[in-house]
């Protein structure tokens, strides 16, 4: 049975998850809110074309979210190494009021995720609280299920190193 849920139900259920994903892929809460708003605006306009038998709501929404994040990166021109450098700067001397804006536990963990290379950061964001399996993550990231798993485990290792450089 794959009936189409009401859009408002999807919206209420997935808003925090999409926001959490965006927050970990972008630089701050304001950017995450902008991108989250774009995701649900686009999803609402495309909802008539959403086919529940072809994709789960989670896979459909996270695909829109991933595209919105990539668009955002393209627009702002903040990519790759430049963004990693900025991530370090944010993590070290950030304005405390901005830290409060992030509204998330374990803020040092969030900062460490933002420092990861793009694909590692993405796989971490897509894996947690998303309802996505590695097969769906692989499809979103244009790689196989096994490659997605491997990427994820590399990302965990890199994240541990970020959190505990001496460990």
């Amino acid at each position: 049975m794959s009936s189409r849920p009401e859009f408002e139900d999807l919206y209420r259920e997935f808003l925090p998850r999409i926001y959490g994903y965006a927050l970990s892929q972008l630089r701050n809460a304001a950017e995450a809110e902008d991108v989250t708003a774009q995701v649900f605006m686009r999803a609402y306009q495309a909802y008539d074309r959403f086919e529940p038998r072809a994709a789960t709501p989670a896979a459909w929404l996270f695909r829109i979210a991933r595209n919105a994040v990539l668009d955002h990166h393209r627009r702002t021109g903040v990519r790759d190494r430049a963004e990693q450098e900025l991530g370090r700067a944010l993590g070290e001397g950030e304005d405390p009021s901005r830290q409060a804006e992030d509204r998330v536990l374990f803020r040092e963990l969030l900062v460490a995720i933002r420092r990861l290379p793009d694909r590692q950061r993405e796989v971490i964001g897509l894996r947690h609280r998303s309802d996505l399996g590695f097969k769906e993550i692989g499809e979103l990231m244009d790689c196989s299920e096994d490659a997605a798993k491997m990427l994820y485990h590399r990302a965990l290792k890199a994240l541990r190193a970020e959190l505990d450089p001496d460990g």
Partner: protein
Amino acid sequence: MADDRDLERRLERMYGSARPRADFEDELWHRIQARRPWPRKLADLLRPAQRLAPMLAALLVLVIGGGWLAAHVHLGGSPSTLSSTGSSAGGGTSSAGPGFGVLPAPPGAAKSISPAPATAGANAQPAEQAVAPPYSFVGKLPQLPATLPVYRYREPTAAARTAAAGKLASESGLRVDVQAGRPATSQEPQFVVRGVEAQLSLPTLEETAEAFVTAHRLTPGYLFQVTVAQAGQSVVYARQFQVNGASVPVARPAGQVAGLSVEVDGNLVVGAHGPLELPLDVAEYPVRPAAEALGQAGAAAAQLPATGSGLLLDKAQVVYVVVVGAAQGYYEPALLLTGSGGTVLVPLISANWLSH
């Protein structure tokens, strides 16, 4: 590997705690609504009327039929005079049936009713009973009364949620958000404590949670039973209703108990969330026999992905499940069937009083 698991738990909690600012959810929803094309706005305006159409039609038939009877038949106070049946305990006073009228069906519950198995027989027989193959139920059915109470709350507005969050925050001394009810996950409005990391050196999870809840005046006002969730990371003050002298738990569709949940990591309390306590109306509704519900479970189980060995259900328990509507939500009685590899939730309210 242990390090990975610990890191993954922290990631789960971090992503689980991420929330935009309090008003963002409602503001964005209004923006989305404002962008609806006019045909959809019109359709949304007409939707409540579409939902009510069967009830309005039935009411029209009653009115016309009643009028015809009054005009053509002398009623003379016979027992056939139209109802004041269906005592409405504190609810509405619809003369067409129980207090709240037709109820929304729980999400994910079976929609079609298959015939009860021939062997099911009377209630509460400690018998081995086969449901529609290849799924089976082996166990004892609970004995059910003819009616059970349904509880109803009004969904709080955005302003009421903000006020409730402020009140909880000032009472607890914590940062608190209040979320609207969520139909898809069968969750009533919830309060969520943010950004807490309270260090408490007590020997057990339950004692740690209790100390936190007491210190922050979060002890639920409803009947509850304290239980440690399977993952061993949270202590749940599982909500219950007292029905005919028995305690009936509130459950989510997948079978987990529902109530105030305190997340504990060692001696550290890292979060808490629970149902917002709202005033409840109550009304009695007719329920169907457990054997009929069991028959429906066969239909529900057949919709699940087949597993190699099939779904064996061996425990049946009456629970309350939250059904969230647009302006109000309900706690409705249901039969929770559990067993190896699966859970099936079957509404107990008579099918005549459930919308599909």
